[in-house]
């Protein structure tokens, strides 16, 4: 027979006492595990929400950037390079430039290391009429493909140029000329096929006739000449109007630069503000969850010590009752020659078993409670299910903490047992 066997036999003999003591440990551990599991669930939930919101924000930002590009496209290019001789009052009055610059300027820009402007597109504009139709006037706009900038990553073109021999006819103009897609129309004596009639835009585009740049140069008899280079300023800190002007004037001293698209800038700012607002919303939500978590941590901060204190007091009291009930037993052990350390071993091993039993049962109970509670609060556990809430450190912590608590609570009763006068015990009984 060993001391271990003696302990186990005693537990079996006084099983109700053991269960009553273990129940206190179980309850304390269950409260501890349930609270920690709930906190973990809330932390996971807050993290998931934050992650979800961040993903949403990122998606929104991508949409905003795309919107910006599209809006910019619809609003037209926002930088225009004109001849230095161009009278801007006249330009704004008639809606197109009347002075010319060499087409080679666009190549100079494209080949330069300039980064503040992109999507370079040379244009040639002029007004035309139709003989026999004095009521019909059009703005002729010659365009060509965007000129690729050799030092920059290739970007998708913002608009598709008109093919040679084709013409894109503005909405109002098409109605006046009764032109439809596929029809052939005469432009200053040259036939062109209508490739597209864009929807009504409510501006000068509705009376514009788009041709390929070379076709326009031929029609207007301006070979090798253009009167504007349209460009998009980059959405970056360096792209101020003054900066762009300074850079372009170094390259093309005979030109001037104007900015057209203030509306685009406003819209971009609006989108930036929307993105900032989204960030603020995410931050507010995260803050809410943090506050909720802090409140629960504060609750745990007093609930857990109270639970463990009560359990410790209960276990200590039960151990004291046990020592008192076993006075005669302890007395005869001492008479038979068992030392104090044997008595201490017997009582502390029982305390450890009590703690381990309470910890195991308490963990299962607490985890189930925490899981159910968090489920009722609407926390979803994703692909990992309940395993997402399992914390090995918490399980180990409970497994060490409960026996430690039990030993601590049993310490004084154990010392009383170890120091008990055997003669007194044997005489009383």
């Amino acid at each position: 027979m060993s001391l271990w066997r003696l302990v186990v036999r005693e537990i079996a003999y006084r099983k109700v006492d053991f269960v009553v003591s273990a129940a206190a440990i179980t309850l304390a551990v269950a409260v501890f595990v349930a609270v920690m599991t709930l906190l973990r669930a809330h932390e996971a939930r807050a993290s998931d929400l934050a992650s979800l919101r961040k993903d949403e924000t990122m998606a929104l930002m991508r949409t905003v950037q795309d919107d910006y590009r599209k809006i910019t496209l619809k609003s037209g290019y926002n930088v225009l390079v004109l001849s230095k001789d161009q009278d801007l009052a006249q330009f704004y009055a008639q809606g197109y430039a009347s002075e010319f610059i060499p087409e080679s300027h666009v190549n100079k820009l494209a080949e330069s290391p300039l980064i503040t402007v992109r999507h370079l597109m040379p244009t040639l504009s002029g007004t035309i009429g139709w003989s026999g139709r004095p009521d019909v006037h059009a703005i002729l706009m010659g365009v060509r493909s965007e000129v690729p900038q050799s030092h920059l990553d290739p970007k998708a073109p913002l608009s598709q140029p008109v093919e040679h021999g084709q013409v894109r006819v503005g909405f109002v103009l098409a109605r006046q000329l009764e032109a439809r897609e596929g029809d052939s129309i005469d432009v200053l004596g040259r036939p062109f096929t209508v490739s597209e009639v864009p929807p009504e835009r409510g501006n000068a585009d509705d009376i514009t006739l788009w041709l390929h740049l070379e076709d326009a140069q031929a029609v207007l008899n301006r070979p090798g000449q253009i009167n504007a280079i349209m460009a998009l300023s980059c959405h970056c800190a360096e792209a101020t109007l003054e900066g762009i002007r300074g850079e372009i004037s170094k390259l093309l001293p005979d030109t001037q630069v104007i900015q057209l698209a203030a509306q685009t800038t406003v819209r971009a700012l609006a989108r930036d503000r929307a993105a900032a607002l989204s960030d603020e919303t995410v931050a507010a939500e995260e803050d809410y969850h943090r506050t909720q978590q802090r409140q629960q941590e504060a609750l745990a901060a007093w609930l857990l010590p109270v639970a463990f204190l009560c359990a410790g007091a209960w276990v200590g009291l039960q151990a004291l009752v046990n020592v008192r009930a076993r006075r005669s037993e302890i007395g005869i052990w001492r008479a038979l020659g068992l030392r104090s350390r044997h008595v201490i071993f017997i009582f502390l091993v029982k305390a450890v078993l009590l703690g381990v039993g309470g910890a195991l049962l308490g963990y299962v109970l607490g985890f189930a409670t925490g899981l159910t509670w968090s489920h009722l609060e609407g926390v979803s556990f994703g692909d990992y299910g309940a395993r997402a809430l399992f914390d090995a450190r918490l399980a180990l912590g409970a497994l060490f903490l409960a026996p430690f608590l039990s030993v601590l609570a049993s310490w004084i009763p154990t010392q009383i047992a170890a120091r008990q006068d055997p003669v007194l015990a044997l005489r009383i009984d």
Partner: protein
Amino acid sequence: MALLQARDLHKVFPGPHGKVPALAGVSLTLDPGEFTAIKGPSGCGKSTLLFTLGALLRPDSGNLSVLDREPYAMTGEERAALRAKSIGFVFQQFHLTPYLSVLENVMAPALALPSTDAQSRALELIDLLGLKDRADHVPSMLSTGERQRTALARALLNRPKILLADEPTGNLDEDNGALVLEHLSDFAKQGGAVVLVTHEREAAAHAQRVLQMRDGRIA
């Protein structure tokens, strides 16, 4: 060589009306093979003497020598070791551990003094004391005589030199009492020393020497 020598033992207990002398200069020698009975009225100090001789109760003064060693000059741990090895106890109330079987109760002293033959020795004693069929029973399933025989077997497990019995037949019927006393006699015949505290004339009759105690003294 004497197994036990007590000289001028004194012990006083505090009482509600002042100090009560339990031992007032008791001297005693136990030789191997000697069966000594101590008689006397209740409260004369018999049990106090037995606990003191058993290295359980330190006297206020006087000397005790057990197998040429002085237990009260030792540490508590050394004294416990001496008890485990050399002294056996039998009490009127048996003091069996209620949740252990007869075999486990008999083997309990081996917890203090482990030995490889503890189980065979326990079974041998159980057989000797007529408890073979009761080896797996817990004390609540035993008769009083069987309980006392179990307690006696427990006292003999570690082959002590001295056996101290405090009213061992007090709760037993005549037959069981006689059986226990016979085993005590046998122990003495095998070279051990027995001190039997009793107030029964029949029990004392088994002893070679009967000492009368009164007011903490041996008359």
